[in-house]
């Protein structure tokens, strides 16, 4: 299966009596990078978890093109997730981690795909366990793990964490490549300066609600401040 958009319609999510997302409606299309902004606890990770099919919404529906979450395995095969935790095994080497997940995603040419991913991450020379890597190196590896199977929907939770300047620049360039390849990229971040100029759109989550951010003048941080003040 494939899809060209993801749309949330009146999506709410409660944890017990706590309402984390409240009637969110938004649509993102292929070839678009959408930044998800908001303070800690605003619901960004919950939003991404619902998009990843990890969490069902308490109310509302999410559509992936014409399909819903019920598409199950076929849908999961088209989604790549970089979580807050990095989803990698510290006891295994970078190659072993990527090869394991490549096989779990039934990627065809595992060896070639993994070597290409390691080269992009700048980790092709490392054969020691990932537990010995720096945070930035693990972050780069985790990003490649999320993109191994060429997903249509890419969900990134704080992807710039721990990256140095060179790696940040490389990631910005990688995001642009994903946009060109027709991916739908949703990324939750606090690094407003870093994604300014990379993201096509920014959504502000506050108190579980989606607040529109104007496309007016000034930097992304200026617009973020304005939207936060007005809401």
């Amino acid at each position, binding site marked *: 299966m494939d899809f060209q958009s993801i749309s949330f319609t009146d999506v709410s999510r409660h944890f017990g009596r706590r309402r984390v997302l409240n009637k969110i409606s938004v649509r993102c299309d292929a070839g678009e990078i959408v930044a998800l902004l908001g303070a800690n606890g605003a619901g960004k990770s919950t939003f991404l978890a619902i998009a990843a099919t*990890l969490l069902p919404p308490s109310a509302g529906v999410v559509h992936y093109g014409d399909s819903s979450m019920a598409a199950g395995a076929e849908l999961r095969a088209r989604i790549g997730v970089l979580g807050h935790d990095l989803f990698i095994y510290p006891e295994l080497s970078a190659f072993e981690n990527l090869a394991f997940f490549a096989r779990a995603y*039934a990627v065809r040419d595992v060896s070639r795909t993994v070597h290409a991913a390691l080269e992009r991450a700048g980790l092709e020379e490392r054969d020691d366990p990932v537990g010995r890597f720096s945070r930035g190196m693990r972050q780069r590896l985790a990003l490649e793990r999320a993109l191994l199977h060429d997903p249509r929907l890419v969900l990134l939770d704080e992807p710039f964490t721990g990256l140095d300047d060179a790696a940040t620049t490389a990631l910005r360039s990688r995001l642009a490549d994903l946009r060109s390849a027709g991916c739908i990229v949703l990324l939750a971040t606090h690094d407003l300066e870093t994604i300014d100029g990379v993201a096509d759109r920014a959504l502000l989550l506050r108190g579980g609600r989606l607040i529109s951010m104007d496309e007016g003048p000034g930097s992304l941080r200026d617009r973020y401040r304005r939207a936060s003040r007005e809401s």
Partner: protein
Amino acid sequence: MSPESRPSFAATAWLVTKKDLLIELRSREVVYTTLFFAVACVLVFAFGFVREGVAVDDAAAGILWIAIAFSGTLALGRTFERERQNDTLRALMLTPADRPALYVGKLMGVLVLLAAVEAIVVPLIALMFHAPLFAFPLMTALLLTAGTIGFAAVGTLFAAMLVRARSRDVLLPILLYPITIPVIIAGVRGTAVLLQPEASLPVARMWLSILVFFDVVFITLALWTFEPAMSE
């Protein structure tokens, strides 16, 4: 490069088992702690139940299964703790692989670890308790295999369900032992029958049949409930 299919059930299960065993081979954490615990357990009981070289009746069978149950609980907890630390269980759930195959893969990994523990504990009990555990090697092996599968089948399901629970270390034995009591009883009785001066193979076969029945029920239920139980 886009995958049009997903790995087969068997390929997924083997992939997960192989990964767990490779990690264990590197760290040897679970096998060492589990083995140390099982051996300590046997030694402590040996001091309590063996007087002047003679063990209390049926003590060897009971202690063998207690050692398996206790060390098995430890192995289950540690195996899933690894998946919790970097949220890799969630990463596995995100793949298109069959979710029951993930369960089977984890189960096989636990079974291999417990088999390694049993390979040390059984001869140790035979030695310490003067128990003829190798008089009927095939039947003893079948009872151990069936009993361990039954115990680990339930344990793997519960350990996976509890992986994000705050008090998982306390909850796992509380949930696991009451449900696996029939397996432990059948294992103890089946083994005890083989250790009698006049061992009865037909009775041991009956206990083995009961264990196989439990295995079928537990594995079927676990395969059926794993996916809904793991959804958040």
